[in-house]
């Protein structure tokens, strides 16, 4: 019996590059999520980063390694930005110029065979400078027992172009139109990229975080309920 700490491997700090490094997208201030008004709590100076799950480190576990192996064998390595394994879901982030090739490989390779593109959705991260707009594709492989994969590409606000995957996944047609409508992301090569939910002459793209929101006038001395993003809230 000694007082020296045991050196069992599970007690040692992880070596560099062996655990996922989180990605910071913005930061929170204060402790209680209030963003408006003077913070009298004394915690106003607190700053905490918003950390999203980062690039996973091999082995990914489960089926994920087999998917990654098959994909990396089919597509050139510069296509990949990172692979995130989080909450039991695999997200492959690819460079946008390689998206059509990756999508084609995912659909056609017998080891991948993600034959269905179920959903395309946009996400606007204003704090992610240089890649504010993300497009997320949810793919499913019925052949391999409902295996799922999330494909993600990013583009900057200044150049909101992403190649369309409609040629590979016709199902993405309306979903890409919706993403254009809501986020202003232009899908190059889409057969008819028009607004789908908003009226044809609508200005702006409502799901973007910088889209101005309306307040509600109330019949009391010209008062109004402020827009939701300007109300006092704890977020």
């Amino acid at each position, binding site marked *: 019996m000694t007082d020296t700490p045991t050196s069992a491997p599970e007690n040692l700090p992880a070596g560099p590059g062996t655990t996922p490094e989180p990605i910071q997208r913005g930061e929170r201030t204060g402790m209680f999520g209030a963003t408006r008004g003077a913070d009298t709590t004394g915690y106003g100076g607190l700053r905490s980063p*918003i950390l999203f799950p980062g690039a996973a480190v091999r082995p990914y576990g489960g089926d994920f390694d087999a998917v990654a192996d098959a994909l990396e064998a089919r597509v050139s390595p510069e296509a990949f930005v990172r692979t995130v394994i989080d909450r039991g*879901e695999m997200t492959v982030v690819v460079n946008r110029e390689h998206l059509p090739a990756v999508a084609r490989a995912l659909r056609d390779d017998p080891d991948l065979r993600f034959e269905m593109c179920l959903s395309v959705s946009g*996400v606007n991260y204003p704090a992610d400078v240089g890649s504010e707009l993300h497009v997320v594709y949810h793919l499913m492989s019925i052949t391999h027992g409902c295996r799922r994969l999330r494909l993600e590409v990013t583009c900057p606000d200044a150049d909101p172009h992403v190649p369309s995957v409609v040629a590979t996944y016709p*199902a993405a047609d*309306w979903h890409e139109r919706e993403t254009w409508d809501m986020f202003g992301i232009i899908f190059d090569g889409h057969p008819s990229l028009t607004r789908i939910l908003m009226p044809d002459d609508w200005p702006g793209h409502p799901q973007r975080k910088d889209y101005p929101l309306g307040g509600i006038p109330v019949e009391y001395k010209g008062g109004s309920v402020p827009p939701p993003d300007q109300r006092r809230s*704890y977020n």
Partner: protein
Amino acid sequence: MTTDSSMSTDSTVFTATTDDPDTADVYAASGDHAEGRVFNAVGGDWDDIVGDVGSLPEERIVVNMGPQHPSTHGVLRLILELEGETVTEARAGIGYLHTGIEKNMEFRTWTQGVTFCTRMDYVMPLFTETAYCLAVEKLLGITDDIPERASAIRVLMMELNRITSHLVCMGTGGMEMGATTVMTIGFRERERILSIFEMISGLRMNHAYIRPGGVAQDLPAGAIQAIREIIPDLRKGFHELELLMNENPILKGRMVGVGYLDLTGCIALGVTGPMLRSAGLPHDLRKSAPYCGYENYSFEIPTRSGADAYDRLRNRIDEMWQSLAIVEQVIDVLQGRAGPVMVADKKIAWPAQLAIGSDGMGNSLAHIKEIMGTSMESLIHHFKLVTEGFRVPPGQAYVAVESPKGELGCHLVSDGGTRPFRAHFREPSFNNLQAVAALCEGAQVADVIVAVASIDPVMGGVDR
């Protein structure tokens, strides 16, 4: 405006009502345009328009069916190019019911999100709620902590909801073909289940009953007995529907071979649900990727190979029987055991408890007594959780459930706040409506109605 038929070649005949700026069509007023003659069917005598269109030298006309047309399931707009009675091109125009639910959810707490998303597809609200709650739970990492009883209640509610959704699909679909009795039977049976929903959740639709962490409250006393009592009636009703439809020569004449979409087409267009199963693929997330404990119940996936409107109808009827079988298994599970219906973690679980008082349902007196009378900490806890909500660690999740219309997915992104950073729903109606062109082109106008009804789109879900 005159209805004299001698005026029918005059281009001003149908503009009388549209001269009024309030009713004028901003896109195409009546009269001659570069693209051709425009007729607006706004009031007046239908025979005039028919006679007028008939006087045109060419057969090809473009008809705007909708957005307000009784057989388009709400505000679906179909743009049909017709060559006589044949549809040469069909396109769907949507967005007339867009209410920005996804954007609204970004300004409400995670729990309040249920109240919004339940209003998307109002015919299957409990599926949207479940998909959303499963996604929140996945983000929180508490998927395995959901009490069994809560999952069983979710299954019970979803399967009852699947029956009501299919009944609406069949009822309205039958009505559109002129079969009023199908509609009255369908809605009569649906009513039985809605009264169960009302008993359990307090509401017939837009329940907000399934909450992140479990369900809003346990089944009230007598609910299981009430379900047991309606099951024989439902059986009788289903059988009546089967007798009325399955071998009905008129119905088969309208539906067999109509709205054909084979397996390749379904996969390419991302079509799931009864449409995919009518093309022969037994794909059902309840079997292939079970959630809420579906692996504990025995049921079958009805599959047919005709890939047409008739086989979809038959699949739906069979699925209702299967759902009823699941309901019977679930109520046996629920009857035997009591237990919590909300996750044990008090930092997430909804603090308020409801109870029936002399003046109806409200906060339970025991709970009010605790927070107002005995424990200041309970009051703070209640207040913080109800007004501010819980925080969800940053990240994204996608969860899909098998809804009556196909895969209903929920993609949620959290930035660590008390509200969703982004909520997106993969609505099966939205996706499946893309198949309209494939289903309708080359068919007759009357087939369009049958084909669209076989998709079972609900515009609340399509437009969100």
